[in-house]
């Protein structure tokens, strides 16, 4: 009994600490630093979600862009104020969507559920494709969804995109979700489900012979991954306040891939580290991209510099340390747990 009380106390303490940190950060961070921190959090969410598929069950997917598009568009339909939906944009959506505007949480959940449905629709035929062909199939999925988004203006407003998204994204949402996701996945990793995922990734035949129902677990994995990927995407669009069909294109997905490769595919702490590195990298390079004044010498714009250097970074990591920074290990949090239960 005493031990349980201790664990509960530890949980309350940890949650309290997080609350306090978020509260302080919200007060302290502004402008550039706030955006940076929010970006970091969103990248963490996206990286960990992608890792579940690419790192754990070993299916290399670059198709999360399609899932993100679906989740984002659905959520956007629900959060954009009705005045804009009806008047400014000529959309042929069902009347009840045009007439309602939902608060963030329901929109987030509904969008993510649609994302999950998309993710599962993606996985069912693609399951039959082995190894590389699956990867190509996900690329196709991305392209198909983006093409649809761009060419069905009655639904998505086509290349013009959606605007007037309310600015819902803040530290609480982003980092609350990020911490929650990190916690869940760490728990899952240690649980039977997580080990099932990883065994599917390492040796699917063996996993099957050990009684793991491959299809069931693949669906779980895709569902989980798609859910949080959509959340990440929805948080993103409510930060930048617009949504275009190209929002989650190959370049975007590629940067998430870079995060998990650098951090180590299969490691959650690795994804967090990878997200940190890539976010910092991008933000440091951003002003250089704009072009700047260096002691009176005007350095010209270098658009796309971030992406280029990210690509270089990816190749270098794959050549020198392909398992990433953390490989498959996690940062040990044993010191937080206190005494081990013997």
């Amino acid at each position, binding site marked *: 009994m005493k031990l349980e009380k201790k664990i509960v106390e530890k949980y309350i303490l940890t949650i309290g600490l997080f609350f306090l940190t978020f509260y302080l950060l919200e007060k302290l961070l502004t402008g550039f630093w706030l955006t940076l921190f929010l970006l970091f959090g969103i990248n963490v969410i996206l990286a960990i979600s992608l890792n579940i598929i690419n790192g754990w069950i070993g299916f290399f997917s670059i198709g999360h862009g399609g899932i993100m598009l679906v989740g984002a568009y659905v959520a956007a339909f629900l959060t954009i104020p009705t005045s804009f939906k009806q008047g400014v944009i000529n959309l042929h959506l069902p009347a009840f969507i045009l007439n309602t505007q939902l608060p963030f949480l329901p929109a987030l959940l509904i969008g993510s559920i649609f994302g999950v449905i998309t993710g599962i629709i993606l996985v069912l035929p693609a399951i039959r494709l082995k190894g590389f062909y699956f990867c*190509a199939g996900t690329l196709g999925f991305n*392209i198909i969804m983006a093409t*649809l988004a*761009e*060419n069905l203006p009655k639904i998505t407003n086509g290349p013009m995109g959606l605007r007037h998204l309310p600015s819902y994204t803040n530290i609480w949402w982003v980092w609350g979700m990020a911490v929650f996701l990190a916690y869940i996945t760490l728990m899952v990793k240690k649980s039977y489900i997580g080990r099932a995922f990883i065994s599917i990734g390492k040796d699917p035949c063996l996993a099957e012979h050990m009684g793991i129902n491959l299809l069931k677990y693949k669906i779980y994995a895709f569902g989980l991954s798609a859910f949080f990927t959509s959340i990440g995407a929805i948080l993103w669009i409510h930060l930048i306040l617009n949504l275009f069909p190209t929002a989650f294109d190959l370049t975007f997905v590629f940067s998430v891939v870079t995060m998990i490769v650098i951090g180590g595919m299969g490691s959650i702490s690795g994804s967090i580290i990878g997200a940190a590195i890539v976010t910092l990298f991008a933000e440091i390079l951003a002003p250089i991209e704009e072009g700047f004044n260096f002691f009176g010498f005007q350095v010209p714009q270098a658009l*796309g510099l971030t992406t280029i250097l990210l690509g270089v970074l*990816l*190749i270098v990591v794959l050549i020198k340390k392909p398992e990433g920074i953390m490989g498959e290990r996690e940062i040990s949090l044993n010191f937080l747990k206190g005494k081990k239960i013997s």
Partner: protein
Amino acid sequence: MSYFIQQVLNALGWGSVIALLAAGYTMTFGIIGLVNFAYGEVFMVGAFAAYFALTVFNLPFWAGILAGIIGALVIGLAIERIAFKPVRGSGMITLFITSLGASIIVKNLTIMLFDDSLKNFKVPKFFSGVYLLGDIIIFKKSIIIFLVTIILGIMLVYLVKNTKLGIAMRGISYDSKISETLGVNTERTIIITFVIASLLGGIAGTLWGMLFGSVKGSMGAIPVVDAFIASVIGGVGNVFGAMVSGYILAIGTGIFIAYLPQELVGLKPLFVWVVFFIILIFKPSGLFRANIK
């Protein structure tokens, strides 16, 4: 009926370019299991090199083609040495990721230096002109490109089937270790394969520029996907299959667009992906005999 024929003929021009790209693509795919996403950039750099020679420096036609080939060769081999050689043997997925990285680097570098606008490609005079057959229009350039591609195709198929090099390539794609013990110099064969593929990419890029009269930094993105799907459909490593499949995809897409309502024309890229999924579900080894097990 004549509308149908018109669509087919229209597709012959760019179908030829795709067929060339597919041939180059399937060679590296078959021989070292590399799905080269950066091949689109080899194609684009070839086109840009030709563009510079012809439009910017106003050199004669043959110099344009030469520039295209050399440009593609340089970038193709550079990418091979930097992004592929160091990770050879690490599995298809790793090779694919590095090719993705290389593609993004080269593409964005080009856009950074030259921006992503359409560059006007100077087309030589003998390329322009049309023939009329009833109410069907045949572009002279389509015919020329088609003939060039067929000739190159015949040469390639001969190379793969009848020369020692072709045997070496097929041996390596089947089992590189055994081939090496039969005396095949795998390293050199692989490099030669890349040279041939880059050459094809450069020619394809130059022809594309002449066909459409313009090039742009991001032009490689869609053709490389078409080339990839054509290789898969044609049977990995099968040059003949890839080229035929390239034509099938182009003509199919052309017909698909022709019968689409006007506002859905943007759905063009979907056709090749639908074909891709259908083939993978019903005949994953491809329509023709694949070269590797």
